[in-house]
């Protein structure tokens, strides 16, 4: 299949997908902004934008898959993809770093300062006299009302096991693809995204529990803010990762990839390990400590 792999670097034809993507992104962003401003059309424009972006991704990735399967990509192109994916994951690391940075800042600096630490004696005395700095907190004004925190040793611990197991199953799948064992590959890739969706489902249940039983919401002061923003963005990334794994699974079922040429699989596997590592940090610093 890849026998006629070219020696020249593959420079694609003009493509209409990027401009379609821009139009999609534009409607999504305008729609979301209008939705937040309570304009009636906002939600619909947002959904139109999502639909255009999904179409764009299907079409664009479809082109890339077809080109890859036709052997258009030589090793140098493969290397470009690898580097591109690594740097993309690095940018994602920095995105999460902003939220973890916010978590560490409030826990170690701003909450103690509100309690009078350092040279902030008068901040506490004059503004928030009864406030005792502690973590978790919803702030001196008890924003969002009384709430209970999420215990790490229930669902979160189970979710940790699920994600770690999925990290192991995708590694088995990777060895299988390299050894040409397609049956094992298909089974373990299926297990991986099944575990991924199970994780997302349990996170959804945990959110339901938090909102309905614990009165723990996004508006529960800075504990609720950091809790839901970090777990929420992580959950979005797991969802995206699980969808990507599903797409790769459909490709392996169709017989795509070779033992020595399967960048699409590896890229998604890297991404999956990335969301796994973020979860471990999250479990330690958001749920546990």
């Amino acid at each position, binding site marked *: 299949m890849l026998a006629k792999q*070219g020696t020249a670097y593959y420079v694609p*034809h003009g493509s209409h997908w990027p*401009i379609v993507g821009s139009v999609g992104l534009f409607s999504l962003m305008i729609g979301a902004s209008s939705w937040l401003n309570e304009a009636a059309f906002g939600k619909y424009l947002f959904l139109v934008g999502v639909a255009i972006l999904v179409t764009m991704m299907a079409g664009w990735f479809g082109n890339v898959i077809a080109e890859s399967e036709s052997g258009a990509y030589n090793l140098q192109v493969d290397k470009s993809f690898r580097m591109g994916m690594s740097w993309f994951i690095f940018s994602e690391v920095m995105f999460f770093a*902003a939220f973890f*940075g916010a978590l560490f800042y409030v826990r170690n600096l701003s909450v103690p300062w509100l309690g009078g630490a350092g040279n902030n004696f008068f901040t506490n005395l004059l503004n928030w006299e009864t406030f005792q700095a502690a973590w978790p907190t919803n702030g001196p004004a008890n924003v969002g009302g009384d709430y209970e925190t999420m215990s790490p040793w229930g669902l979160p611990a189970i979710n940790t096991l699920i994600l770690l197991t999925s990290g192991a199953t995708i590694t088995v799948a990777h060895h299988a693809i390299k050894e040409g064992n397609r049956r094992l590959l298909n089974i373990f890739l299926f297990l991986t995204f099944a575990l991924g969706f199970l994780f997302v489902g349990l996170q959804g249940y945990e959110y339901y529990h938090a909102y309905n039983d614990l009165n723990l919401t996004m508006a529960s002061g800075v504990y609720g*803010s950091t809790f839901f923003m970090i777990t929420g963005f992580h959950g979005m990334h797991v969802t995206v990762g699980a969808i990507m794994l599903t797409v790769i699974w459909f490709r392996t079922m169709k017989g795509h990839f070779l033992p020595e040429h399967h960048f699409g699989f590896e890229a998604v596997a890297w991404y999956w390990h990335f969301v796994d590592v973020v979860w471990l940090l999250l479990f330690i610093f958001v749920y546990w400590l």
Partner: protein
Amino acid sequence: MSQVDTHSHTDHHDDHHDHGPAKGLKRWLFTTNHKDIGTMYLIFSLVMFMTGGAMAMVIRAELFQPGLQLVEPGFFNQMTTMHALIMVFGAVMPATVGLANWMIPIMIGAPDMALPRMNNWSFWILPFAFTMLLSTLIMPGGGPAGGWTMYPPLIQQTGVALPFLIFAIHMMGVSSIMGAINIVVTIMNMRAPGMTLLKMPLFVWTWLITAYLLVAVMPVLAGGVTMLLTDQYFGTTFFNAAGGGDPVMFQHIFWFFGHPEVYIMILPAFGIISEIIPTFSRKPLFGYESMVYATASIAFLSFIVWAHHMFTVGMPIAGQLFFMFSTMMIAVPTGVKVFNWISTMWRGAMTFETPMLFSLAFVFLFTIGGFSGLMLAIAPADFQYHDTYFVVAHFHYVLVPGAVFAIMAGVYYWLPKWTGNMYDETLGKVHFWMSTIFVNVLFFPQHFLGLAGMPRRIPDYATQFADFNMISSIGGFGFGLSQLLFIYVVIKCAKGGVKATDKVWDEPRGLEWTLSSPPPYHSFSVAPEIK
């Protein structure tokens, strides 16, 4: 552009990149060609430069005299905010990305950028993002007016425009990250055989490091503005002390992005200057390797100095000292660069064509901006200068006769290569002298205004500041008008003129000068040999 077709048939090696450019609008919408995309970036940047410039004219017109005469204070604040956002994200950054797109593949002997379709998307997000940002000006309540730094709680009074501002920034971030990834991958993976890292032109080096900064900090900005959005619309309290958050935390997040951002704007400028000065001094760049290490040092330091933008927020004294000394340390690698440029000129057979004139003005005037930066780095002194016109003068010196002059130098330097025609040297020199004189009339008096206590971002002022403001405004109008001449020179050159040779200048270094002027639509389909 008319010659492009004649070259294209010579260099297709497989079925995929045949032909020259497509015809009409499709060429520009669908293109995957680094030269087309570079051209679009540069034109877009020029349009944004004039848009942001028009806003600067409104600001200087209002400040021409004390009192309120032309615009409402609210609109004035929208102008200062939008002027900054447009100049940073719309003018300077796309201009350097445009130069990177045009020059990097040629300078390293690559057939194109590594990820050509993504390259197209990086550009085509921008016009939509800026349409969204500019549209806020006609919304109820007007555009964002809390300054481009978007500090809460002030920015949360924005109203309808806030989500549009934030999502426009998200789009610009997506564009920048994709563009930066493309540049890193191109440089790391697409170099011609023999082009080792330490043989790369300095423009390529500075862009490699800039791209790393972009990938590292644009997501942090995205995270920060997302927290602003959820604080406003979803009840989170990241920046609200009542809920345990801290408005100052936004400033930390913002400047963790914002300080590397200023190097994102200036490092490519350093690269351009490092290309031009050797050519017109007819000597190789002095201290090439030390230039590379200095650039990397500046990039590293840029991550640990951010809080010098916020000395007055009430940081612990240890924090103030750390950020003061780390900031001052940046003067060392920057000094290495300035001395290297000067040493390059030492005993060179110098000539003074327009690109060289802009480069010389850059070295001199950027250094003035660097020195005022050192003054601002001194924490106790900064308490006096903070949020005054001294700060405005400082960062305009590093950005206008700094980054913008370097971009213009680069445009004059490579324009004959791009178009195949020489620009009008006389008009170029007139443009240079008008720009240089007026930019100093515009910004130098602002140092005095700031030291005397005039606050920034304010539409009216005490009468004691009247004289210097009037002088500054005259400089501003002059500088603005001078740029119309720049547009004329560029258009005239694109349309025709004396044919440029392949080398254009007298024995310049670099692969770009081995190609025809203009270069073929697809260059280096077969990698050149680097000795």
